[in-house]
């Protein structure tokens, strides 16, 4: 029963009264400006108005709001900080945006079990700061970490710059409390490192993009904070040498914490913002970081510097201290936003390939940009084979946007041909909906739909995202 009528989001006076009585007038917003402010997220071009915004303050309020919405078949769109890049929080069918920012408490940092328990609205970098203060470490660090919420990270299975050595969000989620559209509050997992009691609902909820239920509490795994870290920058006269360096480093059995890649245009804009004095005459750079015990870090950094030189790096520089390294990485985190200096609209993609195919993928992206005459810059988590080809364009130019779509279409297909994926970390949301079946097949989509139905029979949870509603979608370029 996938109701998709345009009336789904309508909130009558009585329903509004019910919702206000649950969350309180201060936390129920429905004036035109407020609705407009929740009509978008960090995804370019997509926009659609919700009918109301609620900011619940407790799990009871979440459950009560969901019950009302479920009864009246009103879509509910959970939202953290709205930094996702897949249209995941666009209220495409109207309805209620459920902003989870008030769940911003860290309830406990358990130094015996190395876990932290927190609300989903905690900002990722705040979690980092809190656990590092007691010598612990929460590795997932998406570029947006100073803004994004841990709930949003969980729902997107966010990656980051330390994915190469430490994995991504899913590797750190031990337990969740969540609320189903029916209002039932459930728990899955907990502080146990081992837990095989039944299906792994925790893992299922990670990356569920708000389509199954609302996460209200999270228990994460922590590690001891590495003793030290060191950063290395290698500059190249061509892209492919840089990509090959990455392949060689991994093949030589060194696993650094981070290998990030930026091409020339990206270096330029990042430098404009951060004023680092990067050699912007170079075609590409790698930013490599290793952490751990001092001797190991020094040994690995030297080895990697050697490999970089051998593979043709024009210049290799080791950051003098941790602050200098941190500055370089912070600048890299700003890459996507900095690129939007160039043209009005910045569309970024997330094609990911096995690491051994990185050089080939980089070359393909260059070729495709040339073929469709669009401006594409590439940066990304090279160590994970996770590239962010980013197109600088202008949403007002329909003809150009169409060429952009064609170019990205070809990039996705190339990634799949090389054994990669259409999205490494940004998720399906609305943006990749048309490509999902290419990756998981009809059978995969059918099963996802049935899972979705089991959690959310009325399809009120973030409808129009992740799971296609109507059969198999024809693969078309948006016209």
């Amino acid at each position, binding site marked *: 029963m996938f109701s998709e009528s*345009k009336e*789904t*989001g309508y909130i009558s006076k009585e329903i509004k009264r019910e919702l206000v009585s649950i969350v309180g007038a201060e936390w129920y*917003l*429905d004036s*035109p*400006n*407020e*609705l*407009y*402010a*929740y*009509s*978008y*997220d*960090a*995804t*370019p*071009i*997509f*926009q*659609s*108005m919700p*009918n109301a915004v609620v*900011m619940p303050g407790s799990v009871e309020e979440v459950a009560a709001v969901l019950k009302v919405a479920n009864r009246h078949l009103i879509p509910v769109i959970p939202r953290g*900080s*709205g*930094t996702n890049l897949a*249209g995941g929080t*666009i*209220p*495409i*069918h*109207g*309805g209620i945006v459920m*902003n989870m*920012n*008030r769940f911003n408490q860290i309830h406990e940092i358990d130094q015996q079990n190395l876990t932290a328990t927190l609300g989903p609205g905690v*900002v990722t970098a705040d979690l980092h700061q809190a656990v590092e203060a007691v010598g612990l470490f929460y590795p997932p660090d998406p570029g*947006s970490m*100073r*803004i994004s919420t841990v709930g949003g990270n969980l729902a997107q299975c966010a990656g980051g710059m330390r994915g190469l050595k430490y994995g991504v969000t899913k590797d750190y989620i031990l337990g969740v409390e969540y609320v189903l559209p029916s209002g039932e509050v459930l728990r899955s997992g907990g502080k146990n490192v081992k837990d095989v009691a039944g299906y792994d609902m925790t893992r299922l909820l990670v990356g569920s993009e708000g389509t199954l239920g609302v996460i209200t509490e999270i228990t994460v795994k922590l590690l001891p904070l590495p003793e030290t870290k060191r950063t290395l920058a290698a500059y190249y006269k061509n892209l492919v040498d840089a990509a090959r360096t990455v392949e060689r480093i991994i093949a030589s059995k060194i696993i650094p914490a981070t290998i990030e890649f930026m091409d020339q245009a990206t270096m330029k*804009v*990042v430098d*404009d*913002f951060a004023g680092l004095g990067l050699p912007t005459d170079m075609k590409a750079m790698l930013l490599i970081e290793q952490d751990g015990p001092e001797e190991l870090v020094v040994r690995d950094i030297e080895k990697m510097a050697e490999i970089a030189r051998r593979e043709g790096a024009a210049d290799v520089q080791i950051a003098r201290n941790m602050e200098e390294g941190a500055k370089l990485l912070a600048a890299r985190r*700003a*890459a*996507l*936003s*900095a690129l*939007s*200096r160039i043209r*009005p*609209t910045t569309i970024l993609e997330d094609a990911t390939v096995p690491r051994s195919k990185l050089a080939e993928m980089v070359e393909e992206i260059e070729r495709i940009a040339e073929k469709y005459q669009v401006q594409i810059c590439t940066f990304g988590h090279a160590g994970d084979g996770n590239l962010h080809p980013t197109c600088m364009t202008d*949403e*007002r130019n*329909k003809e150009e946007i169409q060429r952009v779509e064609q170019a990205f279409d070809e990039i996705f297909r190339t990634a799949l041909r090389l054994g990669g994926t259409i999205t490494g970390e940004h998720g399906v949301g*609305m943006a990749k909906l048309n490509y999902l079946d290419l990756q998981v097949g009809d059978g995969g989509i059918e099963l996802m739909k049935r899972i979705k139905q089991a959690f959310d029979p009325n399809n009120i949870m973030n409808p129009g995202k992740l799971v296609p509603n109507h059969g198999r979608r024809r693969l078309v370029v*948006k016209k």
Partner: protein
Amino acid sequence: MSTIPEKTEQQTGPACESASLINSENGKLHKFNMDEILNCMHCGFCLPACPTYRQTGRESASPRGRIALMKGVAREQLPIDEEFENNMYLCLGCRACETACPAGVPYGSLLETARGVIEENKKSSQRPSWIRRIVFEKLFPYPKRIKALGTLLWAVQATGLQSLAAKTGLIKIFPRAMAEMQQASGKIASPFERKKRKRVMKAEKEKLFTVGLFTGCVMDILFYETNQATARLLTKAGCDVVFVENQACCGALHVHSGEMDLAVRLAKRNIEAFEQANVDWIVNNAGGCGAALKEYHHWFHGDPDWKERALAFVNKMRDANELLAELPSLTFGKPLPVRITYQDSCHLAHGQGIRNQPRELLKRIPGIEYAEMEQADSCCGSAGIYNLTHFDMSMRILDEKMENVKQTKAQIIATSNPGCLLQMKQGILRAGLQDQMEAVHVMDLLDRAMQSPHE
């Protein structure tokens, strides 16, 4: 699904392609630069930097949200109504978001445009906002009236005659502000003292430059002594200091309130006054004024002559910290054994990029123990007249700030802007720290360290 007509579903383009012009009711055209608006890619990097977002958690109170609302208005998807006005004025205009923004979105100028659009629209619909009207039309353009206010404040302070303020009606204009200024401002110079000011103060060593001091309107009354201290420091650093006649208010508050016409009038007066004075540098000691003074050339679009004169003026404009840090080093004879921290002025740090200079100067004072504050460059909530127009939000922001101040365990908070100084004084009182801490303008502090004990 949508309570607002138009544009729902997935948008593939704005309502109007060229979208940089919108029509107001009286047929005048305002310009929102759509390219600048579109430069914002909604990444949210600015969110944690924004004090009003931190306080409310509401997207509409964030830079990203405000820019989206401007986009909505520019595309005629949202009306220019009271709600939009409230949202645009809830912004402090502190421009912390500009510093945080990797995309280089010129938020400050977008905000000025938005407020201009609002004020223009209000004029046509006869909706004056009286507090701003009174302050801007009746007070700031007339130095005499400000002097009168100064005299009044002086009298109130000297005699404790609260009722006098009430009688003249001034108390109605600034009900809380009057009480606050009285409580927070230091000794206000008597009219007599101001009259005996020398017009030129000579360099105390070999003369390097002639400097015109921009005394500011409120600054010269509430912080007359700070102006004198600034002048003394400049003479010790080798400058002749001229108190230029006929200068007016800088116009910053007018621009930030969408009153462009009035602002331009003030700018012209200042440009003329300093042209006649024929100085090497023009120095101001109020971060808020300085940012506006350095942007005069942006106020004269379509008037190349004035634009050029404005540019010449701007090229001479320096913040006092900026010039003093560049001049051959001042030597401070008097050690100050205190722990001190610095609160950035938003318009000095985010507006003019001046962060290191005041810190460096302070660190040169012998005996000083400098403690950097967390989020020192986050707005204190004073923001021009924000603490008058949005008292409650301003105080929430101030209380958040005072938590960070307390952490530093400093005995002195130095600032570089009169508004911030008053606000910090107010914050110290609110936090009950008046026995442990004082707020001082950087110039006054440097001047203290300059004077020998017997002076």
